[in-house]
C-alpha cells in the first residue's frame, strides 16, 4: 500500500473515531448542561425532532428572507381562501424559528381567531380553532416550556374563544369540548365539592404512580406500553378484566351484529388496544355509574342478548375495583399523551381552591393552562412583565366566570349521540366558586399592589373587583334566603375594605336584610342592564329559589323570587342587542322546573321524590305540560326502579306522572315540525 493510501486510511479511521466519540459524549454533556441550567428546557424535546435542526440550519443566512417570503405567502393564501396551505406554512415558519415563542403564538392566534371566522361550517371552524390550540399545546409549549406567553395564549383560547361568547358558534365549541372530555372522564358527581374532588382523585393517583412524565415521551403513544405492562403485573385482576372484556366484545360482535357504537375487536387483539377506545366506549354505553348516568338520556339499551350480558358484566360489583383502576389509568394516560395535561396538577388545582371543577368546561382548561404555566415558569417570570400580569388576570377571569357558569350538564342526543349539535348543553351558576375567586383576586392584588406602591383601597383592580362582588351579591340574593348571609358578608367586606361612594352605600348596614334588598334593587335599576352571564345567573337562581319555596307551600316567597327573576329578565332584555336576546322567560321557568323534577341535584337543591312529583302535578295544567311530561319520560321513567322511585312512591310511573290530555297532539305537532321543509342551512 502506498504512503498516501495509508495516510488516507488513517485519516478516515481517525475521522470515524472522533465522530463516534463526539456522539458518545454528546448525551452526557447535554445532561450536564441541563443539570447546570445552561440549556433551554425545550432542548429535551427538540432533540426528539431532528427535522428542527435541519430546518434551522439548512438555509443558513437566508433563513430570515425565507421566513419573510413564507409569511407573505401564508397571508396571501388566507386572503384568497386557500386555507389548506396556511397551516402548512404556519407549521413551516414555526419550525424555522422554533425558539421564538411569538411566532408560535402568532400562528396559533391566526388559525384559531382569524382563519376560523373565515370558514362557514361549524366543523370547519372547530377544525381551525383546534388547529390553533394544538399548535400551541402540542408543539409550541413543549419546545418553549418556559414561555409564559404561550400558556397565556392557550388559556385565552380556552377562556375567550371557546368559553366566551364572542364567536357566534361558541356553543358548538363548548359542546364539542364537553363531548370529548365527557367521553374520557365522564361527568363529575352532582354532590358536594369534596365528592367532586374525590371522584377525580383516582386519576391523579394513577398519574402519580403509573405515568412516566418525561416530556420526551409525551404524545408518542396513547398509552405508555411499559407502564401498562407494570399495571397488569401489579394487578392481575386488571389483566383478567381486560381479557374478559376482549372476549365479551368479540363475542358480542362475533355473531354478525355490527353495532356502530362499539368497534369490532379480535380475539387476539393486544390488551393495550382494548384498554383504550373499546373500554371507554363500552363503559360509556352500558355503565350505571354516576359518572355516566348523569349525562345519559336513557338507560342502557343493549340490542341483543350478548350485549345484554356485556352490559350486566360491565356493571358487576365483583369487577368494580379492576375496572376503576383501569379507567383511572387510561384517563391519566390519555390526559397526558393526548391533551398534554398532568392529572396530578389538575387535582392540585381543585384542592388548592377547593372547587368542584368540571373538566368539561372550556374555562376549566383555561384555568389549568394559566396555573400550569405560572407553576412551570415560576422563578423566570417578572412580576411586572405584561405576560405575567395578563396570565394572572386570565386565571382570575376563569375563576370568576365559574361563579356564573360553573355547572355543566351535557347530554348527547339519544337518537344521534355522535352529533354535538343535537346534544343538550346547560350551564348554570355555582356560588361555591365565589370564595376561591375572591381569594385569588386578593392574591393578585397583593402581588401587583406592592411593586406599584398602591394602597389596597386604591389598587388597580378596585372597580372591577367591586363590580364582580356586586354581581355575586345579586346572584346570592336571587338564590334565596339561605344564600343571604354570604351576600351580606361580601357586602360588608366591600364596605370595610373599599369604602365605596354612592347613594346605595350611604347609611348601608350590611347585616340588614332590608338594606341588602335595597342595595340589590338600586344596583339593578341604576347600573343599567347586566351582562348576559350575570343576568342569566340571577334569573335562574331566583327561579330555583322560587320553586323551592313553592315545594314548601310558601307561595308568597315563590311570587317574590319570581318577580325578581322577571325584573332582571326585563332589565336585560331592554338593552340587549338582538344577537344576545334571551329566550322567552317561560322557557327559563320551564327549564328550571323540569330539572328540579328530574335531577334537582344539578341545581344544587335536594328535593325528595314526593315533592318532585307534587311539583309535576301542580303544573299539569301549564301550557308547557306536554314538554314537561316528555322530559320526565326521558329522564325519570328509565330509572324508575334503579333510582328508588317505585319504593318511595309505591306506584307505577304512569300513575305517579299522568299524561297530560294534549300530549298526543303535542307529539303530532312535533312530527309536523320535523317534516317541515328546510329552506335554510
Amino acid at each position, binding site marked *: 500500500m502506498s504512503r498516501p493510501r495509508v495516510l488516507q486510511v488513517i485519516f478516515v479511521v481517525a475521522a470515524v473515531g472522533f465522530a463516534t466519540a463526539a456522539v458518545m459524549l454528546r448525551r452526557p454533556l447535554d445532561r450536564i448542561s441541563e443539570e447546570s441550567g445552561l440549556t433551554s428546557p425545550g432542548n429535551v424535546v427538540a432533540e426528539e425532532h431532528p427535522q428542527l435542526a435541519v430546518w434551522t440550519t439548512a438555509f443558513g443566512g437566508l433563513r430570515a428572507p425565507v421566513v419573510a417570503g413564507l409569511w407573505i405567502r401564508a397571508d396571501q393564501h388566507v386572503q384568497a381562501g*386557500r386555507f389548506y396551505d396556511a397551516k402548512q406554512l404556519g407549521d413551516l415558519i414555526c419550525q424555522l424559528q422554533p425558539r421564538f415563542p411569538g411566532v408560535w403564538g402568532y400562528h396559533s392566534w391566526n388559525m384559531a381567531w382569524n382563519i376560523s371566522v373565515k370558514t362557514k361550517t361549524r366543523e370547519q371552524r372547530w377544525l381551525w380553532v383546534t388547529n390553533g390550540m394544538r399548535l400551541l399545546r402540542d408543539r409550541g409549549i413543549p419546545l418553549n416550556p418556559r414561555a409564559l406567553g404561550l400558556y397565556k395564549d392557550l388559556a385565552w383560547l380556552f377562556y375567550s374563544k371557546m368559553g366566551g361568547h364572542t364567536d357566534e358558534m361558541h356553543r358548538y365549541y363548548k359542546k364539542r369540548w364537553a363531548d370529548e372530555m365527557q367521553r374520557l372522564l365522564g361527568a363529575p358527581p352532582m354532590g358536594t365539592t369534596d365528592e367532586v374532588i374525590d371522584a377525580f382523585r383516582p386519576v391523579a393517583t394513577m398519574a402519580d404512580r403509573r405515568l412516566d412524565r418525561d416530556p420526551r415521551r409525551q404524545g408518542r403513544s396513547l398509552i405508555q406500553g411499559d407502564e401498562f405492562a407494570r399495571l397488569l403485573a401489579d394487578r392481575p385482576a386488571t389483566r383478567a378484566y381486560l381479557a374478559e372484556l376482549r372476549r365479551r366484545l368479540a363475542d358480542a360482535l362475533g355473531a354478525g351484529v355490527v353495532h356502530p357504537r362499539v368497534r369490532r375487536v379480535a380475539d387476539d387483539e393486544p390488551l393495550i388496544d382494548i384498554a383504550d377506545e373499546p373500554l371507554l366506549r363500552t363503559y360509556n354505553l352500558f355503565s350505571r355509574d354516576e359518572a355516566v348516568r348523569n349525562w345519559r338520556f336513557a338507560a342502557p339499551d343493549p340490542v341483543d342478548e350478548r350485549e345484554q350480558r356485556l352490559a350486566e358484566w360491565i356493571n358487576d360489583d365483583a369487577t368494580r375495583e379492576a375496572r376503576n383502576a383501569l379507567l383511572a389509568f387510561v384517563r391519566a394516560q390519555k390526559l397526558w399523551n393526548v391533551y398534554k395535561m398532568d392529572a396530578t396538577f389538575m387535582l392540585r388545582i381543585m384542592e388548592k381552591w377547593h372547587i368542584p371543577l368540571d373538566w368539561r368546561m372550556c374555562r376549566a382548561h383555561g384555568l389549568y393552562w394559566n396555573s400550569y404555566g405560572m407553576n412551570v415558569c415560576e422563578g423566570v417570570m417578572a412580576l411586572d412583565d405584561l405576560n405575567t400580569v395578563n396570565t394572572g388576570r386570565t386565571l382570575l377571569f376563569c375563576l370568576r366566570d365559574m361563579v356564573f357558569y360553573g355547572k355543566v350538564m351535557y347530554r348527547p342526543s339519544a337518537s344521534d349521540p355522535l352529533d354535538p349539535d343535537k346534544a343538550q348543553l346547560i350551564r348554570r351558576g355555582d356560588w361555591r366558586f365565589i370564595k376561591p375567586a375572591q381569594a385569588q383576586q386578593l392574591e393578585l392584588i397583593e402581588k401587583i399592589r406592592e411593586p406599584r406602591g398602591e394602597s389596597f383601597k386604591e389598587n388597580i383592580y378596585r372597580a372591577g373587583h367591586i363590580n364582580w362582588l356586586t354581581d355575586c351579591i345579586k346572584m346570592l340574593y336571587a338564590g334565596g334566603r339561605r344564600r343571604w348571609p354570604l351576600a351580606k358578608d361580601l357586602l360588608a367586606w366591600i364596605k370595610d375594605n373599599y369604602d365605596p361612594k354612592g347613594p346605595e352605600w350611604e347609611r348601608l348596614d350590611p347585616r340588614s336584610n332590608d338594606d341588602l334588598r335595597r342595595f340589590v334593587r338600586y344596583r339593578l335599576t341604576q347600573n343599567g342592564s347586566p351582562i348576559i352571564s350575570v343576568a342569566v345567573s340571577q334569573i335562574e337562581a331566583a327561579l330555583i329559589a322560587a320553586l323551592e319555596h313553592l315545594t314548601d307551600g310558601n307561595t308568597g316567597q315563590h311570587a317574590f323570587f319570581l318577580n325578581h327573576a322577571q325584573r332582571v329578565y326585563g332589565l336585560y332584555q331592554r338593552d340587549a342587542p338582538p344577537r344576545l336576546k334571551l329566550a322567552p322567560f317561560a322557557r327559563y321557568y320551564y327549564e328550571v322546573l323540569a330539572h328540579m323534577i328530574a335531577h334537582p341535584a344539578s341545581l344544587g337543591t335536594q328535593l325528595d321524590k314526593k315533592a318532585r312529583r307534587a311539583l309535576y302535578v301542580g303544573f299539569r295544567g301549564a301550557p308547557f305540560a306536554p314538554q314537561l311530561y316528555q322530559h320526565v319520560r326521558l329522564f325519570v321513567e328509565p330509572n324508575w326502579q334503579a333510582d328508588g322511585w317505585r319504593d318511595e312512591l309505591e306506584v307505577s310511573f304512569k300513575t305517579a306522572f299522568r299524561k297530560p290530555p294534549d300530549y298526543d297532539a303535542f307529539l303530532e305537532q312535533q312530527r309536523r315540525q320535523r317534516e317541515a321543509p328546510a329552506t*335554510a*342551512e
Partner: protein
Amino acid sequence: MSGVWAVARYTLSQCLRMKLAAVFLAALAVTLLVLPLALEGDGTLAGRIRSVLTYSTATVSVLLSFMTVLLTVGIVAGDMQARTVFLLAVKPLPRWKYIVGRWAGVVLLDAALLAISGGAIYAVAQHLREEEALNHTDRVAVETEVFVARSAMRPRLRKDASEPIAPGTSRRWTVSGVRASPVSVEGRARLQARLTEHHAFVRGVSANLRPLLENARRRDAIAEAWITGDERGRGIRARVEAEGRRLVVVYRAGNEQLAEALRPGQSVTVVLVEHRHGGPQTRGEGAVVARESHLRAAFEALDDVADHIAVGEYVGIRGVDGRVEHFRDNRFTVRFLPRDAHRPQVADLTAGEDVPVTVRPSLQLRYELSGRGTSGGVFGQWTAGSARSPYPPLRIRRRFPAGTIDTLAIPERLVGPGGDLFVEFTNGSGVNVTVDEDTLSVLYRAGGFTGNFLRGFGLMLAQMMFLAALGVFAGSFLSFPVGCLFCAAMLPFAMMRSFIADAVKLPRHGETDPVVWIGHGAFRLMQILVPDFARTSPSDALAAGRIIPWREVIELVGLTGGLQCVLAITFACLIFRKRELARVQV
C-alpha cells in the same frame, strides 16, 4: 433529421452520465418520497391532497428548471471549453443541427423525468384519495373540489354591480348559457306514455330530432334520445351507450331549439342525454332505512355513492329526485317534491328495500363579500334557482365569511330549462356589503382530474422546452458560469413576471424621463421574449380543481414551447453558425 436525432440521443446519454443530472434526479426522488409524508395541509384530507399537489408540482418544476438550464448551458459551453466540438465540427453536420440536437436531447430527458415524476405525483394523489377523510364534508370536498377540473361562468354584471348592497336589500345576478337542464322524470314518464300512444307523431319527432342530435354530438354535447317505443330512438340510444355517455338531461318543449323540432304547441317533454356542466352522475345501490312520511324517507348507501352526497344536493331515488336534508354515516334523509309524493317510485318505498341511487352533480357559486367591520362574517341569504325550474330555489341563510373567497354548492337541478340560473344575495347585516364582481362566478365541472393533470404537465414541458432553448442560446456564445448567470437572471423574471408587471412604472402621458421609457421598452421586450412561468405552472389549478382548458394549453405551448422557444433556438443557431470555434495559429 438523422443528424439532429443522433445528437439528441448522444446528448441524452451524456446527460444521464453526468453527475449534475444524477444529483437532480436524487433530489427529485427524495422530494417526491418525503413531501407526501411531511405535508399535512390543514388537517383535512382535501387540504393534504391540495398541499401535496401544490408543493410536489412546484418542486418538480423548480428542480427540473434548474437542471435543464445547467445541463444545456453546461453541455454546449462545455463542448467549446473542452474542445470536443471540434470532433463534431469536422463531421458533415450542419451547425444548426448540432444546436437543435442538443436542445432536443435535454428536452427528451425533461419529458421522461416529467412523465416519471408526474406519474409518481398522480399515484400519490390517488393513493391519498383512498385515505380516510376527516368527515363527510371533507370527503365531498375531495371528490367535488379536488379531483375535478372546474370551469367558471361569469354572470351578467349590472352597472351597479360594484356598488355596496345596503342593509336589508338584495341584488340578483343571472348566469345564462348553462347548458345543463334539470331532469324531470315526471316529464319522461309523460313522454313515454304519450309517445306510446302516438307512434306516428313520435316517429316524426325523431326524424326531426336526429339532425339536432347529430349536430350536438359533434359538439360533444347531446348524445342520446330516450324515446321508448321508437326504433330510431333506440338506435341512437344504443350508439350513445356504446360511446359511454350516460347522462340525462330533460329539455322541455319550451326550449327554443327543440320547440322547432317538436312543433310548437305540443306539450311533450323530450329526454335527451347530454354532456353536462355539472359533471357525471354517480350511480349505485342503496337501501330504504325508514319511511318517515309521505314526502320523506331515510336511505343508506355504500361508500362509493355516499362519498358524493352532500346536504342540500339532489339525489335520484328510482329516478325521482329529492333533496338531501340530513346525512350521517352513509345514512341520509331525502325530501321529495309534493308533486312526486303519490308516484309509485316514491309511494311504494318500503323499509329494507334496495333502490338505485343517483347522485346529481352540483355547481358551485364562488364569491367574496366585503364591508367595513365584517371581519367576523356577514349575515345574509344567498338564493339560487330559476323561475322556470320545477325545483324550489335554494336559500342559504346564515353568516357568510367576508374578506376571503368562498364557495357554495348549488344543485344543478336548479338550472332552468333554458340554461338560466340566478343567484341573489340579501344583506342581512347592519352594514353595507359589497360582492366582488371579479370573483363572482359559477363553477361547473368541465372535465376530469386526469386530463387536467396531463394538460398541466404538458404546460410544464413547454416551460422546460423554453428553458432548454434558453440554455442552448446562452451556451452558444457564453462560457458556462456566465451562461448560468444569464439564465439565472432570466428565471426570476419569468417566475415573477406578473408581479413585476404590476410593479413597473408605466410612462404617463407627457413623460419625458428617458430612463422610464427605456425601462418600459426593455420590460416590454422581455415580455415578448420571456414567457410567464406563473401561467405555465399547474400547481394552483390542480390544487383548486380549476380546469386548464385546451385553448390555454395550445396558446401557452404555442407561445412558450413554440414561438419563444424557436426564437431562442434561432438566435442560438445564428450565433453558433458565425462563431469561430478555433483560431488558426501559424
